[in-house]
């Protein structure tokens, strides 16, 4: 439970997170105060060498970095690359601590092996409260989660966490440790004191004796040096690569067609067959009958399989498989779900909220006496908000290539969770995890979708049943309609204002609370009496974390409703928010800078208006102003300004790219995102009816960054999204007086 009890001693209302700041501060200040942050006990490169450094001349210095005879430094990165730049920026952080020459740094995807589970990341996903632990407990939690993370398969990319966990607490340490090991090796060889050896651009130099050598010369000897698990890290003024917009290492391959995504895997020496699949239109149903007569006669078809919970056609090419799949008649079992349409789904939500009434449900957060304060308030407002189901719709449809032979299984796919995928395959096809190898490829987008591995298990089953190496590709229709989803939800909200219009009471109750726990709480605002309640209701469509997770709908609910309060108070929405952020200096600074760059205080052109929203998520504060032109009667997005405070940004241009992306993703959902239901099945199927924002509709986007200093580094991938929808609906209200409490927007202006 997120305790809103105000702690006046703490500088930020988000007091719960200040402990995490301690760990971060220790690292950023570069002091020796690092407490047992996880570097592998010992230096297990012996076992790993053959897996990650088998090439001629390659030498693994520690688990995370290898150097070859050409003095190329390769960072071994345990996260997937799905466009967020994790591969390159994590390498950038290691390379900086290592004093490696950036032009000669490469990145290698760490194998899907328990050795690469990072304790900090594991803790963030499994037990975030341990990140606030007392210092003396750090080594315990670190050691525990290095082991526990391995057995729990916690090799995960998500939660906007790669840089702020693995980057800060693994890659930097590995780089600094490797540098010391190289120096130690050179000191031994040159018989000079280690303190006198300098490093720069992958070179070791001892000025006094005139000795110098590239790192490659001492890589092998370095690996035998003792490894310091708490090396001194650089202070910010010492950074040479971190904090700079270094060009991404994976971009050259992404502009000439050579980057290999999951769907592109063509394993050496294997002749592939291809599978198209159809999954149940209504979740949870199964095949009752299958008519494959036509498909049997179609060109290229090898096999047709009824797998119980899906049907597959295997053929010589994906196109032939899909053509044949389109002709297979399938009857499905009856669904027991009473939800046939979205009206039914919202009725389920409403029923749960009705049951909770004004004070019922589970208390998610509380401060003061919201019910009492609401009753006494000079003015009260209330509203009911709704949000629809949303699909992830990555550009690369789900796919997986699998080969099962001789008691072993090889998988090539794009995944955010390679070890969980491996475990799922193991339990599905009855082969031990040690005999299953996951070969990770680039992801053509994920946004949380590839945190679930049902598609990997499906491919493994088809490969096992046919005996062939099979590449299974989901059609866009399957990817849209038969997937896992951002939940729909409904939120009833009430606010009480005093005579001056100040917000003195806030209450909300909604039905979906997944992750992160604090997303539903307007914690940064000074609202003396707050109550946040959950009245759980069942979802018809299965849930999957979707970019920014609960922040995506709660950001819309909360920041729209705060705007309603501002309107009721007759106040400027930005100033109204500032008046409630007296204990939040970072939020205040972000909003004030935003007011400046967006010319908030200048009147807008006729028919045009601006809206504002601010959401802190995944460690980063983002405020956005969106300007909308309503002169045609339909919303035209002209401009978007965003200001972000992530504490410190490791790669400014990369960070901006992520925020721009989050904004476009959020605006797409706001304008068009909706999945309708008919007979319990999703109606939308492809990009003609599950519409996307395109080049001609995106606004100009300007992103400003504030590095506020010694606070934990915040994430980049998700934080740009939550403020987008409310900033837009707030702008539409400012322009038209129409308050939108449901999404998507475009269909409300036809």
């Amino acid at each position, binding site marked *: 439970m997120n305790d809103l009890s105000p702690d006046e001693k703490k500088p930020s209302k988000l007091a719960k997170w200040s402990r995490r700041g301690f760990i971060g501060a220790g690292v950023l200040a570069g002091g020796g105060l690092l407490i047992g942050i996880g570097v592998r006990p010992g230096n297990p490169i012996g076992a790993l060498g053959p897996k990650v450094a088998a090439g001629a001349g390659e030498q693994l210095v520690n688990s995370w970095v290898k150097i070859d005879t050409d003095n190329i430094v390769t960072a071994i990165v345990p996260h997937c*690359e799905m*466009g*967020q730049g994790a591969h390159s920026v994590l390498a950038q952080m290691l390379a900086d601590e290592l004093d490696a020459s950036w032009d000669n740094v490469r990145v290698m995807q760490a194998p899907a092996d328990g050795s690469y589970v990072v304790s900090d990341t594991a803790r963030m996903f499994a037990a975030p409260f341990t990140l606030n632990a007392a210092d003396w407990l750090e080594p315990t939690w670190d050691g525990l989660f290095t082991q526990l993370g391995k057995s729990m398969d916690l090799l995960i990319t998500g939660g906007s966490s790669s840089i702020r966990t693995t980057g800060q607490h693994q890659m930097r340490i590995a780089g600094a440790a490797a540098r010391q090991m190289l120096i130690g090796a050179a000191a031994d060889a040159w018989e000079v004191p280690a303190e006198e050896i300098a490093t720069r651009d992958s070179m070791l130099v001892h000025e006094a004796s005139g000795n110098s050598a590239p790192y490659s010369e001492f890589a092998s000897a370095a690996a035998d040096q003792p490894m310091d698990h708490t090396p001194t890290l650089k202070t910010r003024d010492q950074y040479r690569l971190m*904090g*700079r*917009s270094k060009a*991404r290492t*994976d*971009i*050259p*391959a*992404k*502009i*000439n*067609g*050579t980057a290999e995504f999951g*769907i592109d895997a063509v394993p050496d020496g294997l002749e592939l067959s291809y599978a198209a699949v159809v999954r149940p239109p209504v979740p949870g149903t199964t095949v009752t009958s299958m008519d494959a007569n036509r498909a049997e006669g179609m*060109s290229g078809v090898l096999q047709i399989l009824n797998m119980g919970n899906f049907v597959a056609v295997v053929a010589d*090419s*994906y*196109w*032939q498989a*899909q053509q044949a799949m389109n002709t297979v008649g399938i009857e499905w079992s009856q669904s027991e779900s009473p939800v046939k349409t979205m009206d039914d789904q919202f009725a389920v939500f409403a029923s749960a909220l009705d049951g909770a009434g004004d004070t019922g449900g589970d208390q998610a957060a509380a401060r003061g006496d919201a019910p009492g304060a609401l009753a006494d308030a000079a003015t009260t407002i209330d509203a009911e908000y709704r949000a629809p189901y949303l699909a992830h*719709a*990555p*550009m*690369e449809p789900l796919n997986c290539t699998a080969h099962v032979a001789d008691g072993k299984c090889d998988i090539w796919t794009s995944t955010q969770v390679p070890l969980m995928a491996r475990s799922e395959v193991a339990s599905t096809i009855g082969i031990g995890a040690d005999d299953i190898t996951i070969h990770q490829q*680039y*992801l*053509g*987008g994920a*946004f949380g979708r590839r945190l679930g591995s049902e598609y990997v298990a499906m491919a493994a089953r088809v490969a096992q049943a046919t005996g062939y190496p099979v590449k299974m590709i989901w*059609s*866009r229709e399957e990817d849209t309609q038969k997937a896992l989803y951002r939940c729909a939800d409904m939120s009833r909200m009430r606010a009480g204002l005093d005579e001056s219009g100040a917000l003195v009471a806030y209450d909300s109750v909604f039905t979906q609370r997944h992750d992160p726990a604090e997303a539903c709480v307007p914690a940064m605002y000074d609202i003396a009496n707050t109550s946040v309640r959950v009245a759980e209701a069942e979802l018809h469509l299965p849930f999957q974390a979707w970019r920014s997770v609960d922040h995506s709908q709660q950001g819309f609910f909360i920041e729209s409703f705060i705007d309603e309060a501002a309107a009721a108070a007759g106040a400027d929405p930005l100033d109204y928010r500032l008046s409630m952020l007296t204990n939040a200096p970072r939020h205040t600074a972000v909003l004030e800078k935003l007011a400046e760059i967006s010319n908030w205080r200048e009147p807008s052109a006729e028919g045009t208006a601006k809206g504002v929203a601010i959401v802190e998520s995944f460690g980063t504060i983002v405020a956005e102003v969106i300007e909308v032109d309503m002169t045609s009667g339909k919303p035209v997005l002209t401009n978007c300004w965003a200001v972000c405070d992530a504490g410190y940004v490791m790669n*400014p*241009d*990369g*960070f*901006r*790219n*992520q925020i*721009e*992306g*989050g904004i*476009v*993703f959020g605006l*797409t959902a706001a304008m068009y995102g909706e999945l309708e239901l008919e007979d319990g099945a999703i109606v939308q199927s*492809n*990009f*003609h009816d599950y519409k*996307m*924002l*395109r*080049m*001609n509709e*995106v606004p*100009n*986007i300007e992103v*400003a960054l504030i*590095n506020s200093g010694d606070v934990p580094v915040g994430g980049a991938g998700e934080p740009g999204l939550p403020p987008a929808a409310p900033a837009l609906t707030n702008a539409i209200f400012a322009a038209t007086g129409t308050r939108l409490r449901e999404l998507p927007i475009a269909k409300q202006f036809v």
Partner: protein
Amino acid sequence: MASFILNGEPITIDADPSMPILWAVREKAGLSGTKFGCGIAQCGACTVHLDGQPVRSCSTAISQAEGREVTTIEGVAGPDGELSKVQQAWVSEQVPQCGYCQSGQIMSATALLRDNPSPSDADIDAAMSGNICRCGTYTRIRRAIKVAAGIEQPRTEQAGEEA
């Protein structure tokens, strides 16, 4: 069966004449740079050039390529791997995020600039709105097109440094 010129080299594809060019180049010719995104000409990830004109290869049968020239992303760089102006701009502006849509984006942008060396924003909208980018790199694509056209200067690393 269909015979055509693929990236300057003659090729014969032994397949059903109604097989889309997309699957022929990916699975028969082994060129995986052209991507599958939707299969119904809505997303542009499969964009190739047919006699220099951008087409959605997911919805264009190989029979339509008979005797004609097909160019994919693999055929954009020079024979010695020298990046085209468009590709160079894509790098200088750090356009791609996941990169999956970018082959199609580059093919559409290349055709635009060949036909219209100094496009306006409206020209860019018209030429590029058939290409979806789910990662949202549209503003960078627009800037990269202008850089490739010489309308804007390329970003230097200094420009993006320290916030």
